[in-house]
């Protein structure tokens, strides 16, 4: 009887060691629980982790929700935390770090991360806090056929060229409102300002402090650029976010767009649009200001983190499972789902915009602890200027005042 059991144990350990050979899943019998946003690239990473390591884990749960950002802090604060890993982006990493909810990954990277590239490691003060796997940014989309028809030479590379191209399209009577941008009141309109302000070389805070510094000549110039662009944007632009602008583009109602790189694959595929639109859509770098060199975009990455409030062995198993999915085979199978930062990625037409924007030297979305508060203030206060009921200086000073009030209440000032 004992002998039989021994043989059984031997077989089981053989089975596990063979699975270890395929992918190192760390400690056995742990619970792996992942909270993540809901788009194809994240599913690809999580699928790979699940197929590699679900067998050796006691449970493997995934919660994919677009509202992940809203629940992550509440879910991760208790001990033990609700999830062993949250898949984050620039801003959400800061959101978790502000409450101390992610752990440093240095020793785990040493043990399991031999295949990771050095630029995948997100470090804060020298400590690895996240492992990035894909990049994203806003950039320009344009319709070659419409630009040609209205007599625009070449690709508009600066905001001024974009505006004159839009004017030519309007003058040619092709479209009254040839531009689409994500300008929905709130986060989106704030983000558009961020991109154009960065293109003007602006800084969001006084160095080393949490005091906002956007009410300056660069801020005003950025707002003037924004207003000039908005002239040519769809009338309902203040209600439009990514889904709406993508819809307008696919319906052929726009000739130049500033949209997310992650929409590229969806726009270029053969669903939801006509061949006339998809075959003439080209993705290119975000424009710069005339005479400037920084593309008007914020670069984003998405990556994995490991919770602070879980046991070390759960943390280890979760990390091992997730990085086991970051292989060139996974990338090869899901090449067009994202701009992968992992080895083996072959950039296609859908990746051209983000690549060009990143190579052009665009800035990352800033990781200041208090950035979200300023972003909220921008999202709320710039609208009056865009509607024409306020001057640029007034709007910017309103933003600073709103930010200051909120930052004081939240303890940052």
């Amino acid at each position, binding site marked *: 009887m004992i002998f039989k059991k021994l043989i059984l144990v031997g077989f089981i350990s053989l089975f596990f060691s063979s699975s270890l050979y395929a992918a190192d899943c760390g400690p056995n019998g742990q619970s792996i629980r992942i909270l993540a946003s809901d788009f194809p690239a994240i599913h690809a990473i999580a699928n790979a982790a699940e197929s590699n390591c679900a067998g050796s884990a006691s449970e493997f749960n995934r919660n994919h929700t677009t509202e992940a*950002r*809203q*629940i*992550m*802090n509440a879910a991760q604060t208790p001990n033990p935390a609700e999830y062993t890993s949250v898949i984050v982006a620039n*801003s959400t990493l*800061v*959101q978790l*770090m*502000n*409450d*101390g909810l992610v752990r440093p990954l240095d020793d785990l990277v040493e043990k399991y991360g031999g295949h990771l590239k050095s*630029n*995948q*490691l*997100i*470090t*804060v*003060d*020298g400590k690895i806090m996240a492992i*990035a796997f894909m*990049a994203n940014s806003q950039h320009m989309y344009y319709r070659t056929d419409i630009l040609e028809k209205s007599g625009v030479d070449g690709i508009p590379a600066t905001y001024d060229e974009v505006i004159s191209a839009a004017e030519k399209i309007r003058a040619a009577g092709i479209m009254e409102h040839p531009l689409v941008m994500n300008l*929905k*009141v709130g986060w989106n309109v704030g983000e558009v300002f961020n991109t154009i302000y960065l293109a003007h070389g602006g800084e969001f805070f006084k160095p*080393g402090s*949490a005091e906002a510094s956007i009410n300056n000549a660069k801020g005003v110039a950025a707002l003037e650029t924004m207003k000039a662009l908005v002239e040519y944007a769809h*009338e*309902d632009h*203040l*209600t439009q976010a990514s889904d709406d602008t993508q819809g307008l583009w696919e319906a052929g109602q726009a000739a130049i767009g500033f949209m997310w790189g992650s929409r590229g694959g969806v726009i270029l595929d053969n669903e939801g649009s006509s061949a006339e639109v998809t075959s003439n859509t080209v993705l290119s770098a975000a424009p710069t200001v005339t005479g400037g060199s920084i593309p008007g975009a914020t*670069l984003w*990455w998405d990556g994995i983190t490991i919770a602070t409030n879980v046991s070390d062995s759960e943390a280890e198993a979760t990390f091992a499972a997730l990085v086991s999915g970051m292989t060139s085979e996974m990338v090869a199978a899901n090449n067009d789902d994202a701009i992968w*930062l992992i080895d083996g990625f072959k950039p296609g037409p859908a990746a051209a915009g983000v690549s060009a924007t*990143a190579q052009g030297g*665009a*800035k*990352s979305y*800033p*990781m*200041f*602890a208090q950035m*979200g*508060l300023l972003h*909220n203030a921008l999202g*709320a206060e710039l*609208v*009056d200027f865009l*509607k024409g009921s*306020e001057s640029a200086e*007034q709007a910017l000073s*309103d933003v600073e*005042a*709103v930010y200051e*009030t*909120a930052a*004081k*209440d*939240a*303890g*940052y000032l």
Partner: protein
Amino acid sequence: MKHSTFLLFSLPSLSVMFLFIAIPIVSVFIQSLHIEHKQVIIVTENCDPFGCETTTSVDTEASAKLKEKAPLGKFNGFKTYSNRMHFAFDELGEAWKSSDSFTVFVKKLYNYPLYRALSFTLTYTFIVTPFVLFLGFLVAVGVNNLPKMFKGPTIFASLLPMIVTPLVGSLILFWMVDGDGVIGATLQKIFNDNSLSLKASPVLTWIMLMVYGIWHLMPFSFIVFYAGLQTVPQETIEAATIDGASKFQRIRHVVIPHLMPLAIFITLILLMDNFRVFEPIIGFKAEAHATSISWLIWNHLRESAYPLYNAAGATSMITIFGVAILLLPVLIRTWRDFKEKNKG
């Protein structure tokens, strides 16, 4: 009834009210007096796939120690109520001094979130409430005069706007008024203006929200009035008819006085409901042109990374006071009527 018996009888309801009404309100009030502790900020070097930047981070250990000592946060008194997010006293004083006319001052007032929200909320309340009362009454009288076989289906159909969830109702209407939607495109055709957009103009947005509010709430006043109409004494109506009163006179002098207590009840509920208008603003994505008090509360809490509990608490308290002020005239009147009746 003995006082002690009365107390014993009302004890369950009093304790429930205390638990579920008084305690939450007091806790919200206390929260509104506190702000977050000072975050301990350190300058850090952050590196990502695109390069390294010097930014700031929160020193979580040091900040957690502060929090442990006083979990409620730092006492701030009534400063949250007077700051720029709410009554903005300092800023208003400044604006008053620097404005040379009242209109300039009002324009500046509109720059502050609470006053902006109040202007829409009050306009909405004072326009939607009478319309809902009046139209609801008309529909009730109309349905009451229908032949019996049509009454059931008509009542059901008239209740539909209220059955449809506000968010869904407003979303559907939002799509319909789009430039490519049924209503939006028809309006563009009627006015022969391709750039006419209900979503882009502040005035049209306000009108759209109010029309939606009237549509959504009318069934409520309709059904209450309809129930009331069933209790109108037939003898009085017959007597009035014999005296030669026309249909209009019968409604004016018999039905309306009979329904007056109901009208007051509906007004109270509508004032409270309309003062808390929220869903249509989200559904119509109308934040650019119209914000309400309830929307402000939501906005303070929306950012999960930096929820401003103090600001949300203060706005909630302001809402309660606002509702109380709105209801006061109606309540005083009811109290007077009650006293007079008791005297007689």
